[in-house]
């Protein structure tokens, strides 16, 4: 059983009893068990030919949960993504890293369509969206488009700035989308929300407002909020970058447990130690392109000079 036992609660005052919880429900756990073990997936990359040349992938041949093809994105005249191809398979943990401004956030935000792709396509769990590839059959017309909201409901996202709703308690933050998206009754939503808070070790903080929680606790509530929607994939955009150093650990611990539980994850992070632990596929980005990908050996032996420079700079 996967449990999360976050560190002693950093808020001074009332001590909070340690909570035990299950990160994912029974259904998901069964699915995760049926999926190949992470160790096998990690090893498979060596030797296994990539499904398509130039596509960042572990080489898993199953239908990917997230498939990005030819993704281009411009802000005004400035193109910031110059064609990204990425596969994320069930249970995989993909780490995006690279210098600031290289387009990591834009890739994540394109996956749940907070950014509209200018070209290429994004497909999550069979729902495809995007203008398609140039030269693709039937190009000129938009390719088959799923509804953005349909796609978003399959994706959970955790932001650098937490983005909790400050006028709602921790419990209501989690329960509101359960009611409005999943159509749950208030009582059921509250119960499920409380369970999600228990999973991140914050059940005792359910009645607190975000302003009464530390940054680390707020981010854990944000994780619980995204998680309670039962997403197919969780996206993390520098989830610990806005935290005081002593609060980073509790958030990484929750993410680590989530990874162990088999959640499919795409993580943008500068915490390369953490990346090394969970990353099945590590993707180095620079200036809007994927420069180099690999398993954890990428951190020890980067081959591209840009990646080498970056590794030297962060070390």
């Amino acid at each position, binding site marked *: 059983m996967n449990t999360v036992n976050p560190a002693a609660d950093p808020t001074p005052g009332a001590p909070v*009893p340690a*909570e035990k919880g299950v990160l994912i429900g029974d259904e998901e756990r069964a699915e995760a068990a049926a999926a190949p073990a992470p160790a096998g997936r990690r090893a498979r990359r060596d030797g296994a030919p990539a499904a398509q040349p130039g596509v960042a992938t572990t080489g898993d041949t199953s239908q990917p949960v997230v498939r990005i093809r030819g993704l281009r994105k411009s802000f005004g005249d400035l193109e910031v993504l110059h064609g990204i191809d990425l596969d994320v398979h069930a249970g995989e943990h993909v780490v995006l890293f690279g210098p600031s401004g290289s387009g990591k956030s834009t890739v994540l935000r394109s996956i*749940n369509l*907070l950014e509209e792709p200018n070209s290429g396509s994004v497909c999550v769990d069979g729902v495809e969206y995007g203008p398609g590839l140039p030269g693709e059959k039937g190009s000129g017309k938009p390719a088959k488009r799923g509804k953005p*909201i349909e796609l*978003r*409901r399959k*994706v*959970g*996202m955790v*932001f650098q*700035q937490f*983005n*909790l*709703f*400050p*006028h709602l*308690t921790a*419990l209501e933050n989690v329960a*509101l*989308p359960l009611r*409005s*998206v999943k159509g749950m009754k208030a009582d059921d939503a*509250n*119960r499920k929300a*409380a*369970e999600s808070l*228990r999973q991140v070790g914050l*059940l*005792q903080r*359910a*009645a*607190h*407002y*975000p*302003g*009464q929680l530390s940054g680390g606790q707020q981010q854990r509530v*944000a994780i619980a*909020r*995204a998680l309670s*929607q039962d997403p197919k994939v969780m996206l993390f955009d520098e989830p610990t970058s806005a935290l005081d150093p002593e609060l980073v650990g509790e958030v990484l611990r929750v993410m680590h447990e989530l990874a162990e539980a088999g959640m499919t994850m795409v993580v943008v992070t500068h915490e390369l130690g953490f990346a090394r632990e969970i990353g099945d596929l590590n993707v180095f980005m620079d200036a809007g392109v994927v420069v180099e990908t690999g398993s954890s050996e990428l951190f020890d032996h980067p081959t591209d000079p840009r990646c080498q420079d970056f590794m030297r700079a962060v070390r």
Partner: protein
Amino acid sequence: MGITSYDWGLIWDYRSELLHGLLTALEVSVVALVISVVAGLGLAMVRLGKAPFTWIAAIYINVFRGMPALVTVIWIYFGVSLVLGINFTVFQAGVIALSLLYSAFMAEIFRSALQAVPHGHREAGQALGMRDTRIFFSVVAPQAFKIALPNVGSMFIGMIKDTSTFTVIGLLEVVRVVQNVNAQTFQPFVLYTAAAAIYVLVAFAVDLLFRVGEGAFSTPPKGVVSKMLRGRKQRRIEALVAELA
């Protein structure tokens, strides 16, 4: 009657007339407040929306922000009524004038309040798969309302003060009452001092009321009112936690 003899007892003698004038002023203001809050919110959303509607909203806002209450009420009561062929009562004319003017101010207040809600909250709602209308009503509007509340209070005080100009169309508000009493008693200093005091006291009371309201919407809850409003919810959450712990 010498210039130095001030009959302060007049205020007590005419208390029911003065009170009636105050109630009339408050009635006009409250009705106009409700209308201009609703209309102002609508205008703000149009103003934040797409062309050409945003331009129309901008023109409206800039015209009516610039118009004095006195001119507006005369324009409605003597001018617009003629054009439309509707005989507005003085009460109606007052409400219409205030609503037209203060919708413009409210629109600006709500626009800046809506813009003050961090964009990330909207994105978080979208990322959770919430629909735009739901994000607006459950995430953005409550926060914007809280931000706007103190300014809405100031506007309400302004509205009450502006009703004093409606004496020109014969609305029996505070100033009109004072003028009538003065015509019989010739005590302008006493009576206009009373009028001024009424406005100041009302402004003070409204300010207090909105401060309590602000406290009620603060998070975490502050003050007796908010504890009363939200204590039950808080206890329900705590009971659920206790049950599951």
